[in-house]
């Protein structure tokens, strides 16, 4: 029953976010601030993780190619498919659920604990629109971050492959171009837009409706990370079935 009530509250929250918009000049500055905080400040960790994940995928594929009949260009092919289909959109989103999600929950939760949200409401401000809407809009840029993760992930795979001497650069690049389906990139971007919405709203929900004090802000951040990850994993399954199944 509690889960149903939470889903209901979440739906009501999302509806309220789009009501009574804040004045555009103020909203514009809030959106730019959130782009800086949520996207730009996350690029370092996204690039770092993607480059190593791409490298690991290439090495593991190469080490499992024991049959001499299987062409070496499979390393590039497997790296491309793994990075574009799963690692860039889904793995990065789980990382973002931790980094960005906990930031969102703790910042909104702290505002709740210190009565700053009450202060907004007393002034007649739609606090959900003021706090959550800029985060949703900022996260619309998330597919660009995923695109960079794709590029850097494949680059990491190429570096690991060539530096490790598993195959030549030409074979890896040939594998990258093998049976390329452009829709796979579209599929990845569709997933990343959905995940972006989840990363912006689920942690906001946990922060906005939290009760208690400073200790509970930490607990809410942990709960928020768990639920954001669970929702991403479930939606990943559903979207994959719908778009590729």
């Amino acid at each position, binding site marked *: 029953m509690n889960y149903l009530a939470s889903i209901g509250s979440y739906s009501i929250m999302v509806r309220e976010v789009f009501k*009574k918009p804040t*004045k555009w000049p103020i909203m514009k500055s809030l959106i730019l601030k959130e782009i800086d905080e949520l996207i730009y400040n996350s690029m370092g960790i996204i690039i770092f993780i993607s480059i190593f994940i791409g490298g690991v995928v290439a090495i593991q594929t190469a080490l499992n190619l024991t049959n001499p009949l299987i062409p070496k260009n499979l390393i590039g092919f497997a790296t491309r498919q793994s990075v574009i289909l799963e690692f860039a959109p889904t793995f990065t989103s789980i990382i973002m659920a931790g980094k960005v999600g906990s930031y969102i929950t703790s910042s909104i939760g702290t505002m709740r604990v*210190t009565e*700053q949200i*009450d*202060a907004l409401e*007393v*002034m007649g401000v739609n606090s959900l629109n003021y706090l959550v809407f800029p985060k949703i809009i900022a996260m619309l840029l998330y597919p660009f971050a995923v695109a960079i993760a794709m590029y850097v992930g494949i680059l990491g795979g190429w570096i690991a492959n060539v530096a490790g001497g598993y195959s030549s650069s030409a074979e890896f690049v040939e594998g990258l171009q093998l049976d390329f389906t452009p829709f796979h990139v579209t599929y990845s971007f569709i997933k990343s837009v959905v995940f972006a919405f989840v990363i912006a709203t689920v942690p906001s929900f946990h922060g906005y409706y939290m009760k208690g004090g400073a200790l509970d802000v930490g607990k809410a951040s942990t709960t928020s990370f768990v639920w954001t990850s669970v929702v991403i994993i479930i939606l990943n399954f559903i979207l994959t079935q719908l778009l590729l199944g």
Partner: protein
Amino acid sequence: MIEVENLHKSFGGTHVLKGITTVFEKGKTNLIIGQSGSGKTVFMKCLLGLLLPDEGSICYEGRIYSQLSGSEQRDLRQEMGMVFQGSALFDSMTVEGNVMFPLEMFTKQSKAEMQERVDFVLNRVNLVDAHHKLPAEISGGMKKRVAIARAIVMKPKYLFCDEPNSGLDPKTAILIDNLIQEITQEYNITTVVNTHDMNSVMEIGEKIIFLKDGIKEWEGSNKEIFRTDNEAVTNFVYSSDLFKKVRQMYIEERA
């Protein structure tokens, strides 16, 4: 003026407010006092519209809050200023940003006009050189003064203060009390203060409402509170030896 009629509020099976009826008068500092758990904060949140009562009405100069539409309720809230117990200043904004925030949100004033108004109210609360400081960089007393400045910047008709003296030293507490009373009289607004502080009761309690277990047990002024025989009030207000002696002296002086 705010008229409260038969106000009830429950949370689950707990009946917190049990039929409160009272009037908060314009141009006066109205105090709500009572022990912890007596329903003061819930009462104030109902007055602010942050909680909806289960029964009864709150009327703001002819406007019954529960009968207003959502947009009318938001408009009414813009006539309210609130000083929260912990000040509730926005951490990411400077003192000036905090005070300017309501003006930016709800007025079409030019930047210069807003700046003039912000300078005026910060000057009014005796904060002349803290414009560019963040809330984390100023003292508790200064935070309260910024909160008061933010509350009055939109020229409210109603000012609410939730324990404005909590965590302050006695000297600063008296300064804040006096400031609230001066602003109330200067702008002829209806001020409601939720407090535990007996100094505030004696200093600025032009009208006092004493709550006990969600019921209005007593109401009167700070002059009348010396003479009352209500046991619940005397047990609460004169619980310290100091105040018992003050009361005794007052009664002897009058006799």
